[in-house]
């Protein structure tokens, strides 16, 4: 080879130059106080809750409806504490159903999504149908579900799965569709084929969109589940849906609202704390969050 040996001084210069460029281009690492960031995210939420409670109390004070029809926050919160045991029991049963239903939807959604994203024929046949399924209100499935599964948990799971699985499948399909082609090419150059390509390139690349699909699927599952618990009452089962119905029947509005608050809080906690955190962690890791802000 017609190359002269690079003298050692040039190599040392190169080292120094590279190190200098790297230092200039990466800049000092920014570390913000975690407590302050957490507080900045929390206080607007606290203010919003306080404001909502205030508006509620003002409406009650205005005498728009008699207090036994629309009780104030104080009465509802005392109900929350006095009914605590029943609410916890109901929440546990309902949450257990949510977990089982969501897990079923996850398995079915992932299998469906993986098949559709890999096969042109399946995509042509099922692609638009999956999206179409999402627009169908889950409550419209219940009459059929009750005929098929009687008044059982099976009927509820049927509707939960049919509500959530399309979102999960679509999340996976969308994620696979939007993988930058250059990453797939890089994978091929590195020799990733078949299962190795799926495991090391396609699935990780589709993950952010897939988590979004999970989040949306959870919202559908939770809604379908509560609708199901109102329609499919199984004797001896204490559930959140059952508690709602029981309170309505005895005209206990404070009890009714306290159950609604529990349903809302569980929904928010799972959505933002569980899926929201998961989404944020993944986005940060993938560099999808603008860190300059």
């Amino acid at each position, binding site marked *: 080879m017609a190359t002269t040996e690079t003298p050692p001084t040039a190599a040392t210069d190169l080292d120094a130059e590279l190190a200098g*460029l790297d230092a200039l281009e*990466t800049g000092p690492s920014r570390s913000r106080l975690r407590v302050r960031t957490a507080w900045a995210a929390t206080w607007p939420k606290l203010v919003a809750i306080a404001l909502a409670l205030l508006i509620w109390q003002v409406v009650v004070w205005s005498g728009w409806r008699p207090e036994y029809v629309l009780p104030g926050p104080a009465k509802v919160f005392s109900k929350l504490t006095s009914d605590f045991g029943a609410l916890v029991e109901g929440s546990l049963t309902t949450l257990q159903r949510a977990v089982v239903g969501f897990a079923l939807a996850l398995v079915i959604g992932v299998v469906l999504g993986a098949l559709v994203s890999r096969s042109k024929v399946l995509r042509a046949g099922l692609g638009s149908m999956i999206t179409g399924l999402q627009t169908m209100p889950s409550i419209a499935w219940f009459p059929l579900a009750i005929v098929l599964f009687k008044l059982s948990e099976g009927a509820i799971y049927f509707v939960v799965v049919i509500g959530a699985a399309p979102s999960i499948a679509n999340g996976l399909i969308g994620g696979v569709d939007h993988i930058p082609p*250059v990453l797939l*090419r890089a994978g091929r*150059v*590195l020799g990733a084929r078949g299962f190795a390509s799926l495991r090391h390139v396609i699935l990780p690349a589709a993950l952010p969109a897939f988590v979004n699909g999970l989040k949306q699927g959870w919202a559908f599952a939770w809604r379908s589940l509560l609708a199901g618990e109102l329609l499919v009452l199984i004797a001896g089962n204490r559930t959140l849906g059952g508690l709602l119905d029981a309170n309505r029947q005895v005209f206990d509005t404070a009890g009714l609202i306290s159950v609604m608050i529990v349903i809302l809080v569980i929904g928010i906690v799972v959505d933002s704390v569980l899926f929201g955190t998961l989404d944020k962690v993944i986005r940060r890791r993938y*560099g999808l969050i603008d860190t300059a802000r």
Partner: protein
Amino acid sequence: MTTTAPEVVRPDPAADPSAAWSSPSIRLSHVSKVFGHGPQAVHALDRVSLTVGTGEFVCLLGASGCGKSTLLNLIAGLDAPSLGTLEVTSRPTLMFQEAALFPWLTVRGNVDLALKLRKVHKRERTAKVDELLDLVHLRDFARKRPHELSGGMRQRVALARALSQDTDILLMDEPFGALDAMTRDILHDELELLWSTTAKTVVFVTHNVREAVRLGDRVVLLSSRPGRVAAEWEIGIPRPRRMDSAVVAEQAATITDRLRAEVRRHGDH
């Protein structure tokens, strides 16, 4: 479009005595590539014959539409030629204009995965990754993720990943095209140093004439639509070279004139 992979043949070193390099690493004879059918067919490459010697640094130069990237894809085995034969001595690795690093993996993880896909045992991988990251001077950044690095650093990780492929042939598709001039200059030095120490065969595609003269043992000019080999220059300028030196500029000017003549030819019809 044919779907068969190009035939990989280990040629007899003595088979082509006319080649300037005793043992060719890449040999294309009358390679054509056509995309599409009938009147819409695009002739990306037309009977391209090119021999690259082992350890040679060849720069491919040409205006838009000369099929530079198509040619690299063929050599890399990502696509198959429509006609002609193509021989390579080992499975080449390819670097793109974008670093194409996997964003969910750290710098270390990206290089490690490349080794894992080659079925290198876990025990050997750690040391091998360290060695490769030392080679591109990025050991200190092993735990960073691609989005935390500058464009030049990402390309160096991509280079380390490409070198992990244990191949003799490195294909580079405008790898420094998106970098600022300062970073590119330094990476030229680094690439030249790596090439001279590892004895890889390099095919480097660029649209920058000075870059081609700065790096190449030989510069090959491709004509556009269809892509053909229009001219070749042996670059005898001693290394290490500088992009802004007078000899490089002078050689680049000759090549630029020829490149412009090629471009003018397309304005005539």
